[in-house]
């Protein structure tokens, strides 16, 4: 990741990161909110546009790079993580963001996602999960809930969805976070954490597809339920939530599961509420698995850095041009002279 050197650190505005292209998502699409949050994040971090690259696959989400004033590569369906791996192997200095939808990254691209996470390539992987195939007009996706009616499942889908976060943890990801498109306070925070983490950072962003899957996340993102149905986790802070911050999560006695407790006057600790430890993979797994009626966990669920792949392979800078004595290379081993 490029270290921004002081002289560089001039004031930057969100709009400085907007490209000159007309944004062509449907009016009201959650992608607009994510774009806004990303541009704000770039400005807050004063990222150097020339060192920033957005790599995407295919899908509505994958149109993202066109709208950023940075470098961008709109590749092919499902392959963005693989392309981005090559970018980093050639130039580890670049600040690379990978963008894709749930179909792009978990249907056709699931294998590349697994390996980019396992290898811990220093990429920020943002999965825009709208639980549907938007660009192809609304077929169900691997994250669609059972019973989803779509053009390809008129009778309702039958197969169980995959949990993006649990999949990432099972794949060996060392940074797993969640955010909601419209939550403009939390989303940039999460994006900054992802950027700050050296290695593969996986962020699942719940994104509303207003045309084909409107309201998919209402049950935990709607204004009136958000405090009760979401828990925003922060390292070192007790797992507390609720309108009046009067509820917490603790280990259900005698089992390996979380349960909700009302906080008494003595506060969280007394109630046995857990303190979030983002380096605890099992806690992250428990949090990622929370489902209504339990609150949905948002924020950085897991962060336990390890050396990233490409930095071990090529080091810190752009790979150097091939050099060395070619004649010597050809003359390795046995040679003989004919007079």
């Amino acid at each position: 990741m490029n270290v921004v050197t002081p002289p560089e650190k001039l004031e930057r505005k969100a709009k400085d990161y907007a490209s000159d292209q007309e944004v062509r998502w449907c009016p009201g699409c959650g992608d607009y909110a994510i774009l806004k949050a990303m541009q704000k994040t770039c400005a807050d971090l004063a990222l150097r546009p020339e060192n920033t690259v957005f790599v995407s696959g295919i899908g509505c989400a994958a149109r993202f790079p066109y709208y950023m004033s940075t470098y961008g590569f709109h590749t092919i369906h499902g392959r963005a993580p693989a392309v981005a791996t090559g970018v980093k192997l050639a130039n580890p200095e670049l600040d690379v963001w990978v963008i894709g939808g749930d179909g792009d990254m978990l249907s056709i691209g699931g294998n590349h996602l697994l390996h980019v996470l396992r290898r811990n390539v220093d990429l920020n992987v943002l999965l825009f999960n709208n639980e549907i195939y938007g660009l192809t007009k609304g077929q169900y996706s691997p994250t669609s809930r059972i019973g989803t009616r779509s053009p390809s499942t008129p009778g309702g889908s039958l197969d169980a969805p995959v949990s993006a976060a649990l999949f990432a943890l099972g794949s060996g990801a060392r940074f797993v976070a969640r955010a909601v498109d419209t939550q403009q306070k939390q989303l940039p925070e999460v994006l900054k954490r992802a950027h700050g983490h050296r290695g593969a950072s996986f962020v699942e962003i719940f994104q509303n597809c207003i045309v084909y899957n409107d309201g998919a996340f209402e049950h935990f993102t709607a204004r009136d339920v958000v405090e009760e149905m979401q828990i925003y986790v922060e390292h070192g802070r007790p797992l507390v939530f609720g309108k009046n911050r009067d509820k917490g999560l603790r280990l259900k006695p005698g089992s390996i599961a979380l349960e909700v407790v009302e906080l008494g006057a003595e506060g969280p600790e007394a109630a046995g509420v857990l303190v979030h430890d983002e380096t605890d993979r099992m806690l992250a797994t428990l949090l990622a698995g929370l489902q209504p009626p339990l609150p949905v966990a948002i924020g950085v669920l897991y962060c336990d850095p390890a050396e990233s792949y490409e930095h071990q392979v090529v080091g810190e800078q752009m790979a150097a041009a091939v050099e060395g004595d070619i004649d010597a290379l050809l003359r390795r081993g046995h040679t003989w002279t004919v007079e």
Partner: protein
Amino acid sequence: MEGTSVLAQPRQEMESAVVRFAGDSGDGMQLTGSQFTLATALAGNDLATFPDFPAEIRAPVGTTYGVSAFQINFGARTIRTAGDAVDVLVAMNPAALKVNRSDLKPGALIIVDTGAFNAKNFAKAHYAADPLEDGSLDAYRILRVDMSSATEKAVESHGLTKKEALRCKNMWALGLIYWMFGRDRQSTVDWLETKFGKTPQIANANIAALNAGHAYGETAELPTGVRTYSVPAAKLPAGLYRNVTGAEALAWGLVAGCKLAGLPMTFCSYPITPASQLLHLLAGAKSYGVTTFQAEDEIAAICAAIGASYAGALGITSSSGPGIALKTEALGLAISVELPLVVVNSQRGGPSTGLPTKTEQSDLFQAVYGRNGDAPLAVIASRSPHDCFEVAIEAVRLATTYMTPVMLLTDGYLANASEPWQLPSFADYQPFPVAFHSDPEGFHPFRRDPETLARVWAKPGTPGLMHRIGGIEKDYDSGNISYDPANHQRMTDTRAAKIAGIARDIPAQGVEQGSERGRLAVVGWGSTYGPISRAVANLRNAGEDVSQVHLRHIWPLPANLGELLAGYDTVLVPEMNNGQLVKLLRAEYLLPAVGLSKVSGKPFKIAELETAIHAALEGREP
């Protein structure tokens, strides 16, 4: 049987000889072969070798499918192939005899280790009876030696286990062959001493076996017909030589090419036979600044290579048929975004998994035509092991000069075959340094060089050139997404014109042998070069009017090719496929070229080609 000593006899001179070492996977035949190759090269012969590994990793001992063989053809004249048929076969067990027998010349010499010719091994080789006794080999000369016990005896004093002792058997056999062809043992002695430096005991035992085998030849009473030969040195151009396989030359050529371009190399691949060697060799070239990446699959490999090229390195990917097929979609992306990329296809027997360890040339259609949309790219092919070096450099040159993927076709035969190579001096190669775009003035990513039509290469990290590219059609004048009908036509035409234009930047097609016009041209590509050269040479020596034309550039074809071929009454196109280049030539030039196809997983034999050429000359179907 009555024997007479050979000591009296002078060595019988041969212009060339073909020797094949065959035994169990565990018998070390490949090592034996490469040692004989080295000694033979040092003796000044020209030569060509081909190893024949079993498909199985380590098949059960004594089985036919576990047989591993190494063939060498060496001579006092230029050697083109590993040889049609074998003069001397060393068979370490019955299975080795069974598998290789069909390739023997009439009257060939078979040297067998009788120590391994027992009921157990006959059964494993599915021999009903002892083939040495049932008269089935009467057409050949047979030398029976109990190499096993001879070796055991020879290494007795070195305190090895029986198992270890028997492992020296191959050196015993090598010693005998050295004696037979009057080769110097020193290079092998040196090699053994370095190889087993840490275990001198093993080294010495092997040397003892080597010497014992040699001594046996000198002293033993050998049956009639078994004698010594001399194959005089060939008249090779003076210079420094080495023995090289196609895989080695290819790896080094890619490294050299990137140095000439002044680029880092990011080599991304997924293992597959027979392409894996390239990955292995380059993984060993880290000191030259080569980055290698073993991806999760072939799609990830080519995509990572494309990403690397996007970022300013040269992305290279390598595979074989089935893996290349998987890269098809991503190749389209590279063509659409016009990034340099080298794709190496080490062809093998198809379709599907086919015959992974056998050679074939059946991916030409896939290379030239095998993509969705009008998606042109450059295709080149190497003709011999050392030619892989030149072709690899050419692939890098075309990819970077024209901002295009280049498909480099080689095959399983070239990858494994070896030949002596007069080493070039790198200083003689013209650099073609890449100039990355840096000027924001009037920049857009699809600005083209008016000459080559190549777009500018602007890599991330360059201030002021931030841009977005992708696989959707782009506006000719801005590089932005465009659905405009006329623009799509223009971009399609431009992509085609760019590749077609390469024809102006490659040498005119020459004639390898023979005249520029005449009765018959034999047109080949790739690894058929060896046998075609020899066959044409033989027929020309016999006074036939035959010319040889061999293509390096498959797409685009050399500008003068149509005209050149029109100068021959007949054009014969031998291919190790069901007729692919021949279709291309017919479509391009409306030329009544006739194909000669061989799809057996094995290279053409010179004799097969001679017959076909004769037929063609007589106007018969080849």
